Each structure stands twice: as C-alpha cells, then as structure tokens.
C-alpha cells in the first residue's frame, strides 16, 4: 500500500472563505495546511455577489441587535439565538478587518464602506429596509476570496491545491487526520493532524436548477455522515428567488436592493400581495414561494415557469415614486442606466452573455434556483463538531465552518449577506480555537496504512465496477426527483416517493461503470465518488423533510401549511448507518430573548 505521509498541527479542508479565514488565523500560531480540490481562487465564495451584512451604520442608523433580530426572524425562529447574536455582534469587526486586509469595498461620499439594502434586513423601528450590506459592486464574494487568498500568500500558509479529501481518520471517536487524493498523480496522501476543519461548502448539485458550482458536491458533510455522525436540519435548503431562467445562475438580491421589481405576465408587480411592507425585499423563502405561486396560477411569462426581474430605470423610478422610497437624506430615490451598470456590473455581463438581455433596457427572466444549505455538520459557536443531540458532546479534533456547517445561524432560512458573514466570523473563530487547542496537544497515534487502504478499497470499488449504470443517468434521475418532490413546495406523498427513488439510485450506484481507469487527473473517478456523496445527502434531506410535519422557512408543505412551534421548534439530527438506514433525532433550539412570533414582511 503506497501513500505519502504528512504531519501538520491543523488541516483545513476547503479553500473558500471559511477555510482561508481559519487558515489565516490558525496559520499565524501553529503549523497549518489547506487541502483543496480546486485552486483556492476557484472556490464558490467567489460567486457571491451582493454584500456582507454588518451594522456599520455608515449611511443610516443600524444596530447589531436589529441585525440579530432580522436574522432570527429570517430563520423562522429555528436559528440558535446565542450563535446569531455572536455573529451579528462580531460582524462590524470582521468587515473592518477585511478592509484592513485591503478589500476594495465600494465607498460612500465620505469614503466609508458603502452599504446597500437586502432582503429581510430592516430598521426594526420603521420596519423598512436598512442599508446594511457592505459591498464591492456585485462581486463582493470574489473580492473576499481574493483578499483572503492574498493574505494567505503573504503569511506563507501551506496549500495542497487540487487534492480531493476522501476520508476522515477517526480513532476512538476522535478525528486525527484526513486521507486525500492528489488529482494530478492519483497518489493517496495521509495527513496526520491534531485538528481538522471541514470547510467544504454546499451541495446544490442535488437539484436540477442551481446557482451552485459543478464542484459543490457536499464532500465534507457526506464523509461526516458516513462516520455515523449526525447532520443537522438537512430539510432546510434555500431556493434563491432569482436564478437566471434555465441556467440557475445567481442574479443577486442586490438587484432588488437597488430597486428592482418582480413582474408577472400581466405586467403586475406581485410582491406587495405577499409582503406588503418590504415587498421584493422579503426573505428569500417568501419571495421564492411567491414566484412559484404566480407560476402555478398561470402568471408565468409565456405560460412558462419564470417571471421578470425588472431593473430598467423607468420601471424602478416609477415604483420609487409610488412607494415614496427615499434616501437616508430624505431625497426621493432615483437610478439611471450608468448607476445600474456600475453597481451591477457582473449581472449586466451575465444577462448579456447568457440570455442576450441588457438589464438597463429589458427585464431579466428569472426562476427560483437551489442555492444554499442552511443545514449541515452541527457545530457549537467554537466550530467544534457536535457528536450528538446532547448539546454537550463534541468530536475531539473535528471542526467545521461555512456552508457545510450548521451552527445554526440560518435556521430555516438564511438572509442574504449572512453567508459571507458566517464564513468570516466562524472561520476566524475556528482558526483561533484550533490554534489554541492544538498547542496543548500531542499528535495522537493513527494507523496510516489502514486509513489509506480503506480509501484505496473504496476507489478500487468504483474503478473495478463493470455494471451498466452511468453517472450521468443516475445524477439526472436524482436531480429530477429532488427538484420535483423536495423543492420549494413539498407534500407527504412526493417526499415519500423521493426517499424511495433515492434509495433505488443508491443501490444502482453500486452498479456503475466509469470510462477512465487511469491515475493521472482522473476526474471521471472523482465525479463518481462525488455522486456517491450527493446521493447520501439527498437521502437524508428527503428523510428529514418527510418527517417534519409543519411549514417553516424553506421547508414549505402543502399538507401542513402552518408553523408548529409546539411540536417542531427543534433541530433535526439525521444519522445514517452503513445500510443507508436513516435515524432522526432532535435537538432543542437555543432561545435567548426572542420568543417566536408569526413572520410577516
């Protein structure tokens, strides 16, 4: 059994915003390395557009308490309030820190960081949208990713680029390293560590229409699940209201923050029916459901399943007047084409490139797109992975941050701008905590041979399989059933069908064949392995959803239309055994100050 052996105090898997922030902080104090299946700047943090939320109050009054309440309300009272308060309180300091690292934010006339309106973020007194999203045009995520990577270069963080993590090394319930596959050579590498952080991102590729990168296959979450550890709140997956029609490419909520309105085939601005106060700037679950209901009512454009997002200055200015929408200085809001192009530069480019639409002149065709996992690997505020639903037991040596983790600061529905905030706040926290903890630890023994052999056997299983099934067919069947039955709206029968279908696909997966049997850059092999991850995550998602008999946040059921706080204000903890049997347990929600109330936007 041949493999390479490495030893680092801290191993971080994933080089998006959470992984890089953790690497910066841990790397300042202890020997730290980042393993990433992509070059770090290819990570999907770079696709985030609109902004990072923080109550800087650069343009108008704002407080972290308002931000926290908006987040709790956005979560439909499933978010853990202690974690949310921690995040929102920490937000201004992480944003200033990013600026001090050189992040090129847009600027206010005074030269401060510019802030824009975003869905669900409000002045808690007037209930109107508040200027809270700190932004760099519509490429805020790109700038955060670039800035963090630049700082990692400056501070000589170790990188293993294009290494695919395939397993955790668990001994006596403790995590002591990972096994990874060097994509270029096909060699296995055993990384012996005192602390491992998973920062592997989401799994939007479970669904058909998604804003997620092809590489967002939930590797970290799936590997945790396979070690008989739970995943939290998997039924809560966000469908972003405005994906580009057919392609799912994200059209940032900032379009609506800057004044864009949603229009159905009759030319009607329909959001006031669903959210009379903040209209298009309601939380994403509310807006996605509104679009879906319009389409079901035959109000989709051309009778199809999409509507228009209109940011043409004439339309926007008309509604500014109707709404009497004003700037903080009291002036009536007004935009022109140059403003749209400057503030929404990439959006303008995407629309022109992919659908031939100039958004300053024509409306953009949009439909809901699978976007973000609120659930994931359960952690405490220190990013320690929870071993079970006790709220006390954590897995020694294992940490998680970013989209793959569930702290839970997003609960049933995440607010826009809070994902970028989450990755930096908890990346920083996790990096510091790991650095401190590993200083007082020795490396604990591992059986590297056995760890590598286990992974090699798994890969050989795929390489040597000569069945009839193909990756493309299995993947498409998974996406079809998950989109149909575990999407924006759900019912008992559909979800039960989805569970059965995914079980069938998991069986058929054992019968696949792949074409590429080589060692060098075998993406065919890795895609097969990643499909296995997606299938496991689809199964626990469907099972968790089927069991939750209420509607809350992104989990909307036609057969249980109301939120049921008495029975269901609790986190799902889903376990899966080697045979694919899923067991669901539950964990209480942390409530500090805000008792649940009905959500109205």
């Amino acid at each position, binding site marked *: 059994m041949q493999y390479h052996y490495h030893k680092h105090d801290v191993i971080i898997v994933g080089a998006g915003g959470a992984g890089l922030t953790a690497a910066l902080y841990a790397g300042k104090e202890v020997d730290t390395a980042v393993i990433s299946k992509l*070059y770090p700047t290819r990570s999907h943090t770079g696709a985030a557009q609109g902004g990072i939320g923080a109550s800087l109050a650069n343009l108008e009054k704002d407080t972290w308490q308002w931000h926290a309440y908006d987040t709790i309300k956005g979560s439909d009272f499933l978010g853990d309030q202690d974690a949310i308060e921690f995040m929102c309180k920490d937000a201004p300091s992480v944003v200033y820190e990013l600026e001090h690292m050189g992040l090129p934010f847009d600027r206010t006339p005074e030269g401060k960081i510019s802030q824009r309106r975003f869905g669900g973020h409000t002045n808690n007194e007037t209930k109107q949208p508040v200027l809270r999203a700190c932004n760099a045009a519509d490429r805020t995520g790109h700038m955060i990713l670039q800035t963090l990577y*630049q700082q990692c270069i400056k501070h000589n963080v170790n990188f293993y680029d294009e290494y695919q993590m395939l397993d955790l090394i668990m001994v006596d319930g403790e995590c002591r390293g990972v096994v990874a596959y060097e994509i*270029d050579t096909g060699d296995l590498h055993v990384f012996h560590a005192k602390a491992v952080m998973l920062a592997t991102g989401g799994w939007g590729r479970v669904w058909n229409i998604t804003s997620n990168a092809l590489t967002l296959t939930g590797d970290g979450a799936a590997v945790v699940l396979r070690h008989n550890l739970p995943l939290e709140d998997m039924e809560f997956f966000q469908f972003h209201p405005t994906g580009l029609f057919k392609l799912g490419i994200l059209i940032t909520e900032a379009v609506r923050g800057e004044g864009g309105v949603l229009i159905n085939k009759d030319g009607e601005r329909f959001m006031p029916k669903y959210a009379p106060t903040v209209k298009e700037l309601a939380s994403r679950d509310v807006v996605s459901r509104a679009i879906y209901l319009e389409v079901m009512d035959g109000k989709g454009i051309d009778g199809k399943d999409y509507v228009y997002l209109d940011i043409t200055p004439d339309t926007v200015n008309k509604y500014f007047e109707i709404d009497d929408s004003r700037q903080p200085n009291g002036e009536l809001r007004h935009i022109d084409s140059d403003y749209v192009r400057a503030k929404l530069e990439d959006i303008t480019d*995407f629309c022109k490139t992919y659908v031939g639409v100039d958004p300053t002149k024509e409306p953009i065709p949009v439909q809901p797109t699978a976007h973000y996992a609120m659930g994931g690997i359960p952690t405490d505020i220190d990013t320690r992975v929870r071993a079970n639903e006790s709220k006390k037991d954590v897995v020694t040596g294992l940490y998680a941050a970013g989209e793959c983790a569930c702290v839970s600061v997003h609960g049933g529905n995440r607010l826009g701008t809070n994902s970028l905030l989450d990755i930096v706040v908890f990346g920083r926290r996790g990096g510091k905590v790991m650095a401190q903890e590993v200083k007082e630890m020795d490396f604990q023994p591992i059986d590297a041979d056995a760890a590598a052999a286990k992974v090699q056997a798994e890969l050989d299983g795929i390489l040597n399989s000569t069945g009839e099934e193909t990756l493309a067919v299995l993947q498409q069947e998974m996406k079809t059933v998950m989109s149909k039955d575990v999407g924006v709206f759900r019912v008992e029968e559909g979800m039960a069908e989805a569970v059965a279908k995914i079980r069938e696909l998991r069986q058929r997966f054992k019968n696949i064949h792949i074409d590429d049997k080589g060692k060098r850059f075998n993406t065919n092999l890795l895609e097969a392995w990643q499909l296995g991850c997606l299938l496991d995550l689809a199964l626990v998602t469907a099972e968790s959803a089927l069991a939750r008999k209420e509607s809350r946040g992104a989990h909307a059921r036609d057969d249980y239309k109301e939120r049921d706080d008495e029975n269901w204000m609790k986190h799902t903890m889903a376990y899966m055994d080697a045979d694919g049997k899923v067991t669901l347990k539950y964990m209480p929600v942390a409530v500090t100050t805000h008792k649940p109330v009905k959500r109205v936007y």
Partner: protein
Amino acid sequence: MKVTVKIQRFNPEQDSAPYWKEYSIDAEPTDRVLDGLLHIKNTIDGTLTIRSSCAHGICGSDAMRINGVNRLACKSLFKDVGTTVTVEPIAGLPVIKDLVVDMEPFMEHYRAVLPFFINDDPAPQTERLQSHEDHQRFDESTKCILCACCTTSCPSFWANEDYLGPAAIVQAHRFIFDSRDHGTAQRLEILSDPDGVWRCRTIFNCTDACPREIKVTQVIGEVKKEILYSKL
C-alpha cells in the same frame, strides 16, 4: 443543431503526443461550449478531462483555446463560436491531460509581484477612508479571476516563460494604484526587471482574451508609466 467539436486530446499514461479527435453532438445555439464538452464527457467518452467549476465565468477554471482564441468555455456560446469548433489547451503552460495544463508556473509569477495588501501602519478602529475616485483608480484590475487567458495568449510569454506576464502585472496594478497600499516601491522594482513589464510589446492579445473585459494592455501601460515617473 449539429455541432462538430474537434478536441486536442492527450493522455500522459497512453499517448506520446497530443492528437485531434472529432465529436459530433446536438446542441442548442445558446449552450455553452462547456455544456458541449460535459455532454461529450457524460455520454461519449468519460476520459475527456477538463477543469470546470462555477460555469458562469467567475472562477476561471475552464480557460481554453477555442477556435484559436483564449476563452472561458463557460462564457462561449455555440451561437457565437459556430458549428465547427476547435478546442485545445491554453498555450505556453505544460499540458497535463487533454485540456488541463500545469498552472504552477503561472501561479509562481503571480506570487512574485507581492499580490497582497501592504500597509504596516496601525489600523484604525474602523475602515481606512478612501474616496470613490481613488477606488476607481484600481477598480478594473480587481476583477481579475486568474484564469490565465491573458498570459497564455501573449506571444512574449510564449517566447520567454520567465516573463511575468499580463495577469501578474494586472494583480500588481491592483495594489500599486490603491491609495491605501504602501508596497508600490517594492513592486515597481520587481516589475522593472528585464522579465517584468518591458517584455510587453503592446500586442493587445491579452485585452482581447480577457473574459472579464479588463483593458489589460492599458493596465500594463499604466504600470510602465509609473515605473518611468518613479525614476524621474
């Protein structure tokens, strides 16, 4: 519509040299070349190897030479590139397999220009102020996604692999013209090296190739000018 995609193939475990192979597929005019390549990989030959991730021009993974011009496969639609399409790896970097090249020499040049914010003054309690105009001075070069389309379209880079190349200069520009940064002197020193900006012959391939529409040649020109002024 029917599309013929002619791809340069190379498997280091089997082939002594690259060769061309043609595939005939059905595609919509609005499909991306990336969709076509993935369709070939999914239904005809799973050994076809490319890098790809975001699929909408933000991550920079799928830079390749399409009909002889450097582009991102995910930002090129068949209606724009035609029904007979040649696809080959970007030039000037060693080919690993099919359309995948070794990015390490490119990343080495990137790291050489100190591509990070330098300012050792104690940071203020809040943000460092910067005017909108000062921000605009370097805003364009912050759009770079390190896809390597520019550098690997540059004849000067093909002729001399030690030339830092357009992408590294764009990254340096991003900091040189940032009013908050203090590393300009060090960077100009690096860029005035014989393998720095002066290897640029203003051929404009880089500007044509940039999928982010950065005016790369102009950016390089601004750095050249800054070096000259700094020596006055």
